[in-house]
């Protein structure tokens, strides 16, 4: 379709201020009809704030929004939907115990009889080739299928602008391809798409235009097809990217961490049980575990950290059985861990950084004598971590809460790495972390491995695993695939494993 002269959506000088930050500063750009427009930026660049104003969740402090050339004030999401804006959020709002149909019906502004709605849903799904069974219970669906519910929900309103917030962070490579087919079809029919992401190769493959934000300001609007991933990344971070520095490969040492037939019962009704997981990590090796979110990664991390006990022989470190040890004992045995959730799991938000250092470093670093805490030791250690990992903060007394996600993650990683653990298990080490900090964190993992520690990285970011790890396995529904050297790994095969399709080359340990 030929784009019309008046843009579908125009933002002119949009400014939004929060206490202490200018989230959006005079942002001006426009989206044409039928255009796939990327909104690109690091975490905290102001992408979400901008989109929330378009969708009516918040109001801009200054500037105006124009829709088909007319100035509008979007008072709430309902008004936005009425105007023709659909949005698919990064975090789904679905009821696990209800069916697909019920979930969609609950999200509709108008009440439509169930039978008519079902017919409409089926029609939309056929039109776009979205496979979904309306009577399935949501808890039985994969993340990709859940996202399709949200997309169908948005498409039922015949939107003329669809906003997608980080849609591919939870999808397998194959699911990403399917999603792109749907989005291209929508665009061809004249629907504009505002696509938020920080995955540059996707933007190059999909989008017509890219608007890049940094620190709330618009830095550039460019054509992603002529830019390189690197040039866009450097615009995003406003500096040049550093590559991971690896020392000369010295080969791996003896087995450090051995996991053998590890099974853990599921936690809660919708939890994922772990089934017969086996792998071994040698000294100096970085072992990656790929997989779509919600396939047992969390349970695996808890079983490694000792927060959930398992069979004594199922986990050994340097030949010592640690399966039944508590989190405290495992730390003393040399196992450190960093869970995915920073606030409230890896760190206590309302505690200072030095108190957060006490949380996991007190026993290994002798911060406790006779049941009393040596405050000075914790402040010194927190200070060392802050310096060594370039954590931007006001010092050891700063509340964890006051740090940005990336800085807190650097502190948490530093807190564990500087204890020189024999084994380090990390989940999503760079989740929601800006590119600069992510590079520093990955480098620190490589450096730790070089000193002879065994490292396990659990991540949904396949690119990260491929660039960081020596060996890779895929977790799906609580089962782990056969490990493969990264050098031999094929993206297609990994993708199939992530989706639960098991090729001949990857026979289950189960």
């Amino acid at each position, binding site marked *: 379709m030929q784009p019309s002269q008046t843009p579908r959506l125009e933002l002119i000088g949009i400014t939004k201020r929060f*206490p*202490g930050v200018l989230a959006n500063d005079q942002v001006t750009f426009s989206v044409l009809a039928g255009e796939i427009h990327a909104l690109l930026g690091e975490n905290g660049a102001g992408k979400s704030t901008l989109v929330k104003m378009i969708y*009516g969740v918040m*109001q801009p402090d200054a500037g105006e929004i124009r*829709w088909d050339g007319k100035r*509008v*004030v*979007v*008072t709430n999401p309902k*008004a*936005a939907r*009425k*105007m*023709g804006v659909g949005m698919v959020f990064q975090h789904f709002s679905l009821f696990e115990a209800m069916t697909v149909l019920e979930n969609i019906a609950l999200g509709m502004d108008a009440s439509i009889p169930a039978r008519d709605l079902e017919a409409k849903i089926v029609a939309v799904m056929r039109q776009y080739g979205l496979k979904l069974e309306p009577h399935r219970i949501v808890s039985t669906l994969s993340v990709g299928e859940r996202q399709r519910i949200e997309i169908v929900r948005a498409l039922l309103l015949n939107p003329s602008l669809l906003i997608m917030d980080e849609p591919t962070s939870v999808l397998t490579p194959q699911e990403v391809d399917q999603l792109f087919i749907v989005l291209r079809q929508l665009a061809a029919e004249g629907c504009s798409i505002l696509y938020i992401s920080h995955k540059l190769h996707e933007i190059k493959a999909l989008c017509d235009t890219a608007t890049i934000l940094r620190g709330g300001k618009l830095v550039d609007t460019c054509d992603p097809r002529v830019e390189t991933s690197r040039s866009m990344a450097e615009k995003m971070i406003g500096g040049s990217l550093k590559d991971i520095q690896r020392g000369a490969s010295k080969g791996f040492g003896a087995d450090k961490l051995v996991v053998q037939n590890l099974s853990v019962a599921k936690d809660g009704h919708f939890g994922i049980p772990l089934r017969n997981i086996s792998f071994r990590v040698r000294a100096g090796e970085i072992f990656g575990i790929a997989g779509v979110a919600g396939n047992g990664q969390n349970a695996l991390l808890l079983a490694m*950290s*000792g*927060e959930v006990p398992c069979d004594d022989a199922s986990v050994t470190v340097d030949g010592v059985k640690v399966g039944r040890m*508590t*989190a*405290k*004992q495992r*730390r003393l045995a040399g196992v450190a*861990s960093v*869970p995915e*959730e920073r606030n*409230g*799991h*890896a*760190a*206590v*938000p*309302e*505690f200072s950084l030095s*108190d957060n250092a*006490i*949380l*996991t470093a*007190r*026993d290994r670093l002798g911060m*406790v004598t006779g*049941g*009393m*805490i040596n*405050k000075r030791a914790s402040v010194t250690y927190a200070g060392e971590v802050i310096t060594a990992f370039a954590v931007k903060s006001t010092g050891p007394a700063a*509340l964890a*809460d*006051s740090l940005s996600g990336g800085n807190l993650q650097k502190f948490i990683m530093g807190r564990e790495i500087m204890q020189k653990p024999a084994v380090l298990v990390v989940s999503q080490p760079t989740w929601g972390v800006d590119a600069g900090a992510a590079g520093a964190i990955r480098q620190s993992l490589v450096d730790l491995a070089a000193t002879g520690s065994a490292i396990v990285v659990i991540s949904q970011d396949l690119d990260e695993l491929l660039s960081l790890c020596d060996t890779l396995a895929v977790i799906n529904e609580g089962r782990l695939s056969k490990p493969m050297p990264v050098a031999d790994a094929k993206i297609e095969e990994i993708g199939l494993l992530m989706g639960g399709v098991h090729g001949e080359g990857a026979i289950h340990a189960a």
Partner: protein
Amino acid sequence: MRLKLEKRPEPSLLMLVAAPVASVLLTMIIGVVVFDLIGIKGAKAVMDIFLTPILSPVKWQDVAAKAAPLIIIALGLSVGNRAQVWNIGAEGQYVIGALAAAGVGIAAGASGGPDVLLLMIAAGMIGGAAWGGIPALLRTRFNVNEILSSLMLTYVALQVLGFMVGGPWKDPNGRNFPATAPLADNQTLPIIVPGTTIHLGVAVAVILPFVFWILMSRSVFGFQIRVVGSAPNAARHGGFDAGRTIWLAMLIGGGMAGLAGSLEFSGMLHKIDLGFPSGYGFTAIIVSFLGRLNPIGCLVAGIVMAVTYVGGQMAQTSVHIPNSTAGIFQAMMLFFILASDILVRYRVRLLPSAKTVGAGE
């Protein structure tokens, strides 16, 4: 104009102190207004309840005697509240503690002195802790909510008290009143200010807050309590066991309530009758929150609360209002302190009302 709550970048220290003070002031103001409306001299009543006990030195010993048990119980409850373990049954633990002390005293017969007194107090702490241990067991074993179980056990404790003082431990020379025999002089706590009722227990109540303060701010135990209370998952990650924390919180809460009961019995009342439970265990919950779950705060809040107790009794004679009026004031204080709590983490902003020009509407 509309109001908007905004999260503060960090908790406000000013509000941390100002909120309890404001709660007391608001309670006084509302008291004046309400009493005036129902035809009682409000200013006089509020003066009597909140200020007269402070201004007249003869009342200080009463304030001290009332503050002591409140402070000691509140210290124990603050530990639990910090860890989000809600012990509502301190009243029962207080009663059982006193009964345990009485049991030791009776068993000791005519012998007394410091050894017997120490045994009585230890028994009081153990008794209270044991009573507090029941909800801990129910919670950790069967996931029974400790709010309900600890509260209900209070009523069980009152029945136990009624049975003991009306039966096995009834004073043979007591004209058949359900009460224990008064303690002999060698089994009572020494008076530390001659000519007053200020007993050794008051000194304990002044020293203990500082002990708790060091324990909570410097020890691994205090750290554990704080982590479990603010981020249970982080506590688990840091190697702190949730069940153990529940046990510790309930045992300490019960032990302190039992200590307060045994001190009140051996230092103040010298006998246990049906009037022994006077609501200290419930009022201490208010003290704990008014003191911001901080041991030193509990010391100050305990004194404030004791003032309202003594003042309530004085207002009975001066403006002829029932003694239970003090209870209303205490409840109002708790209400205000809980309501104003949000101001520590959030601030209120006045915003011009948004123009509601609907898009596409």
